[in-house]
Each structure stands twice: as C-alpha cells, then as structure tokens.
C-alpha cells in the first residue's frame, strides 16, 4: 500500500490502470489519452484532499468521472444506452454455455464482446476482472452501492457468456 506522499509518487504508478480503464470506457486510444491527462490534472487539483491509502481506487474514480464527462460532451448516446439497458434488462436466465466452449473463445472475440457491453456493465467488469478490485473498491470508484456492483456484474457476465458462447459455437460449427 502506498502512503500519501508527493503526487507523482502516489499517482503515476497507477497510470496503466488509469489508461486501461479510460481505454475501455472510451473505446479509443486517442480519447483515452486525452481523458487520462485531464483526469491527472484534476487529481493534482484534488490531491490535497487525498487522505486514503488506496491511491489506485482514488485515481480510478477520477478517471471514471472524467470518462463520463467526456462521453457526455462527445457521445451522449452511449450514456443513454447504458441507462436503458439497466432499466429494461432482467438478468438473463439463459442456458449456461459449456466451459469448454468458452475456453475456445479467442482474444479478438473476448475483446469485441467486452466492447459491446453497455458502459455501466463494462466498467464493473473491467474493474473486477482486469483490475482485480474488490466489490467495495468498485462501489467507491463507480459511486454505486455494493448491491448494484453485484447485479451489474451478474448481468454483464451473463451477457458475455451468451456472446462468447454463441461466437465460439459458430467457430466450432465452421
């Protein structure tokens, strides 16, 4: 755990995490770079208020908000889509694809499946699976309740299984 120290020591070690989140949320290299820069400037501004010991979550929360601000300005449609999905989709009780089938899913398939997830689901999956954050940390970063983290994760995973299961099944059939 990194104690609060000078800004560059606390924040810059988490630049990869910041970029990874921004890249997945904006789905663009160029936009991700812009957003991370903006987020770091914001972080520097708020740094006086940082008292915690979890610098990564603190920075990721700022990056996440910067991403949402950016999307609100540039691609507001994506935020509405996420909202609609949340309201209108129940957790699918589809048949579970066989583990074997999922193991066949290649990297390109997985990447594409992740990119098609609604924003609100994509962020919890990225924070959990790629960044390894706990439910509590995800709740803090995304500004949602732990219960919401859990239901979004369940929905996101059900969707991913559906997408990857059918993709992999098609590959097998070919």
């Amino acid at each position, binding site marked *: 755990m990194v104690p609060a*120290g000078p800004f560059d020591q606390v924040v810059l*070690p988490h*630049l990869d995490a910041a970029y990874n989140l921004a890249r997945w949320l904006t789905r663009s290299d160029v936009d991700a770079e812009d957003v991370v*820069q903006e987020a770091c400037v914001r972080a*520097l501004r708020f*740094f006086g208020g940082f008292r915690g010991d979890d610098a990564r979550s603190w920075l990721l929360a700022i990056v996440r908000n910067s991403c949402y601000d950016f999307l609100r300005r540039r691609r507001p449609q994506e935020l509405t889509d996420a909202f609609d999905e949340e309201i209108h989709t129940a957790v699918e009780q589809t048949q579970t694809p066989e583990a074997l089938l999922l193991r066949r899913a290649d990297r390109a398939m997985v990447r594409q499946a992740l990119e098609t997830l609604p924003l609100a689901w994509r962020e919890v999956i990225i924070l959990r699976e790629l960044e390894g954050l*706990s*439910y509590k940390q995800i709740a803090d970063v995304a500004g949602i309740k732990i219960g919401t983290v859990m239901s979004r994760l369940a929905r996101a995973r059900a969707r991913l299984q559906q997408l990857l299961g059918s993709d992999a099944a098609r590959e097998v059939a070919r």
Partner: protein
Amino acid sequence: MNCTDVRSLVHAHLDGELDLLREVEIDDHVRQCEGCQAIYESQRALSSALKGDGLYFTAPASLQRKVRAAMRSTAEPSRGWSRAFSPQRLALAGAAAIVIVAAIAGPIVSRRSHDDQIAQEVVSAHIRSLMASHLTDVLSSDQHTVKPWFAGKLDFSPPVVDLKDQAFPLVGGRLDYVENRPIAALAYLSGQHVINLFIWPSTSSADAGESFLGRQGYNALSWTRDHTNFWAVSDLNATELRRFAQLVRDRSDGG
C-alpha cells in the same frame, strides 16, 4: 445449502468476497452437484478468458510525458500548489521516475525474498520434525500444559489454542530454530496430516494479512498479528490450511 443458494453466490464466491466457511460449504456442494458444477466451471472459464493477455491496455510511453507536461503547466507557483510539487521537483520528475519505481518496488521485493527465505526455513523445520520423529518435546493435547512448558525456554509466551472441536487436535509443542532464534512450534493434526504452527515475535509492529506459499509439495501460510509471526506448514490442502489459520486467529483473539 441448496442449489438456489449456491447459484446465487457464484459471483461472490469466484470473486473472493465470501468468508471461508461459506466457501467451504459451497465447494462441498459443487463437488457433489453436477448442475452447479457446470455453472461454476462456466463462470471460471469466462473469468480466465477475461484474464488472458492482450486485454489490458498499458499506457503508451508518450502518455507519461504528456501527463507530466500537463501537470507542470497546471502546477504554476502562482496557483498556490502545495510545496510538494514545486516546479523544480516536477522538472526532476522524469529523472526521478526510476528512483520512484525502485522505492516502491524495492521494499516489496525484498520483503518477498525475505518471506521466501523464511518459508524455506519453516518448511525444512516441518520436514525435519517428521523425519526425525521429533514432532514434540511436550506431548500433550492440553493447551494449559503446553503453554506453560514454553515459559523459561523462550523469551516470549506463544498463544496456544485448542482446536479439537474443529477437528484439528493439538498434539504438543517443541522448540525449533528459525531466523536465527529459538521459536515455538506447535503440532496439530488434521486426519493423518501434521500441521506445524511456528510462532515467534515479529520485529515489525505492523500486522500483516495472510500470505500463501507452496514449497516442495508443502503449503505454508503466514500472517503477523500483535507483534507475532505465525507460519502454518502442512501437506494439507490450501483450503483446509486456511480454515485452520482462520481458527487460530479467531481463538487467539478470544483468549
């Protein structure tokens, strides 16, 4: 626990958000239930597909430069930033990057190799205790016999807990030698498996959470609490060893 319970907890379980007892209960159920097993396997497969290479985007080198530049222009002295980010400091930041990485990674790395060394020592001590049939100096399943036995032999009093009711009967205690000092070793049984619990005072005042190492087919779990190092070593499986460790901690707190 029935299938509905087990299935509703699949995510929390695989994400490591459950307590150990709940985990053990679910694992038992999943082993015996084909339907639940398929669901767990499928979730695990998804998780490992997501952990593959090529999905994590690392920051391009140019970004680090841009961020530093952006921070520098933001951190004009007239804007009143804290002294920690004086322009000189930020100008030096590029050169300091390596130092920073070393400063942060250094203690972690050296702590790890230190732990590795101790792991080797305690695993060797564990093996010796079995080879030489010298498991105990004081053969007693009574914690009130074992604990006083250490008095006068060690410069600290190790916590001795009885876990017979949890199927980890205490066999006895002995002196051992780790990290260049005499330490307490308590022997417990789990079925046919011997667990050695090594205990000695910690030089650091900070508590440390559980860390796990595998060595030569043995499992070693360590943690630090109340200025005391604990190492549990056994050929017992990791889940059961964790349960043992948790019980030791719970009981030590209680008394």
